[in-house]
């Protein structure tokens, strides 16, 4: 036993020298067996593995409901919510409220993005613009949207205009901040290059400044989408007769936890869907960033 291990060690040490000396070395396994290096960072998840957590939660939740441990008064079972959702969908109720919410959110998002973009351009490309705009936006940024609700109601009433305006006012901030920062942080070397090839100011804006600020804009847009849904949820709690928020509020009055779960699921789907859409768009628009050795 000890003899054998001794022999092994001897082979292992002598083999390289034998090879150098021109003597054919003993057959060695190639690649040589190596002690595995410890992995310091966890590896990448296979696609779809991210769904494990959510699926496990739904399964546990369903089990808890089926066994009666979770009362439907407290929280409806996922299967019940699914069934209710299907019913609402068939009766057309869901579509109506869904569209009302989506219209609010996307109208506010669109207006907010446009305002944020215009302000960022004005402030990022001219000193007078920056002097007039930047300070105001920073102040606006410090005030939470919720705090503006009373004033917005006094000015715009409790209808749609107020809701869309508040969504837009919370959405434009991240768009502005990120686009402005990107415009300000434009690479001085690119400016120099543009000057050395004699670019006009207009061409410089089109070909250098704006494309250079695009990544910043997309960062802002992804934040804006999240902000938009957050604002929507809060605003739909006040005086609505349409929308997912209204549906949920009414369900609370009747203790219909299944409808509340449906509402939450829709918010989640809309939020995730929007984020996904923005990411897809971003990946397409910024495809040049990927360095593919073609």
């Amino acid at each position, binding site marked *: 036993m000890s003899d054998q291990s001794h022999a092994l060690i001897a082979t292992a040490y002598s083999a390289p020298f034998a090879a150098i000396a021109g003597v054919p070395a003993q057959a060695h396994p190639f690649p040589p067996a190596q002690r595995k290096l410890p992995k310091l960072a966890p590896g990448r998840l296979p696609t779809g593995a991210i769904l494990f957590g959510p699926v496990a939660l739904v399964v546990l939740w369903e089990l808890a409901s089926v066994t009666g441990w979770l009362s439907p008064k407290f929280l409806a079972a996922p299967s019940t919510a699914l069934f209710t959702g299907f019913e609402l969908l068939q009766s057309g109720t869901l579509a109506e409220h869904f569209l009302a919410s989506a219209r609010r959110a996307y109208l506010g998002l669109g207006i907010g993005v446009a305002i944020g973009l215009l302000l960022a351009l004005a402030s990022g490309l001219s000193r007078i613009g920056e002097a007039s705009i930047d300070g105001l936006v920073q102040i606006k940024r410090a005030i939470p949207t919720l705090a503006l609700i009373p004033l917005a109601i006094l000015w715009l009433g409790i209808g749609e205009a107020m809701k869309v305006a508040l969504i837009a006012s919370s959405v434009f901030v991240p768009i502005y901040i990120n686009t402005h920062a990107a415009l300000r942080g434009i690479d001085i*070397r*690119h400016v*120099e*290059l*543009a*000057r*050395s*090839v*004699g*670019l006009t100011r207009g*061409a410089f804006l089109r*070909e*250098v400044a704006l*494309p*250079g600020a*695009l990544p910043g804009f997309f960062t802002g847009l992804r934040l804006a989408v999240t902000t938009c849904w957050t604002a929507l949820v809060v605003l739909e709690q006040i005086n609505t007769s349409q929308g997912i928020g209204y549906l949920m509020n009414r369900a609370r009055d009747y203790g219909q936890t299944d409808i509340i779960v449906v509402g939450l699921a829709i918010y989640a789907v809309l939020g995730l869907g929007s984020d996904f859409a923005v990411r897809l768009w971003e990946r397409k628009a*910024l*495809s*040049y*960033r*990927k*360095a*593919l*050795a*073609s």
Partner: protein
Amino acid sequence: MNASAHPLRLPQPDALAVSLRDVTRRFSGRSVLGPLSLDFAAGEFVALIGRSGSGKSTLLRAIAGLDDGVEGEGRLTVPADRSVLFQDSRLLPWKTVLQNVVFGLHAEGSDERGKRALADVGLAGREAAWPNALSGGEQQRVALARSLVRQPRLLLADEPFGALDALTRIRMHDLLFRLIRQHRPTVLLVTHDVDEAIKLADRVLVMDEGRIVVDRPVSLAHPRAKDAGFDVLRGELLAALGVTDTI
């Protein structure tokens, strides 16, 4: 009336391409350049060497007209059609290779010329690639194509090969030399590499503390091998740079 793709621009031996008279530059009061008076003949290949901080880039930027906001005076006469080759390739990542080459050109047929320029630097077929997908040497070749497609009368290059490995650098020397021969622009090449200067230039300037301390024509025949004449010049220039150790 259309100009042919490569209009023949015969070098006029007597024409001055660049002329500097009592040019000075200061950074926050500290004199960095000059007073300097200097002439480059049209078609001349001038290499500028000098230790770090001696003012080479400051001079090049002054000639390129990229130094407004810098204090200084003096008179500069420089052709309007000049292009600059920077140390980094300075490609715009959101433009394809071809778009980068013709960046700022609007004349009809620019794309065709751009494609030819890319073929000249050995990158035919890579027109649609993104700069990020190219190696460092390839990116610098695109930058060279961008400089030369304009057929400048003056090419200003500030250590354009400084970031490249030795092998790629030698290839780039040959490429630059070959392409320069087609249109004969006046060239100002700033470099740290004495061998590079001797290999390529018609004239070598050594700068020290903002002044030209050596102005030396190089009359060796091309292609220049590292023979005795080369070594003598090399020793001379290294001495002017304050380097005594000649290998």
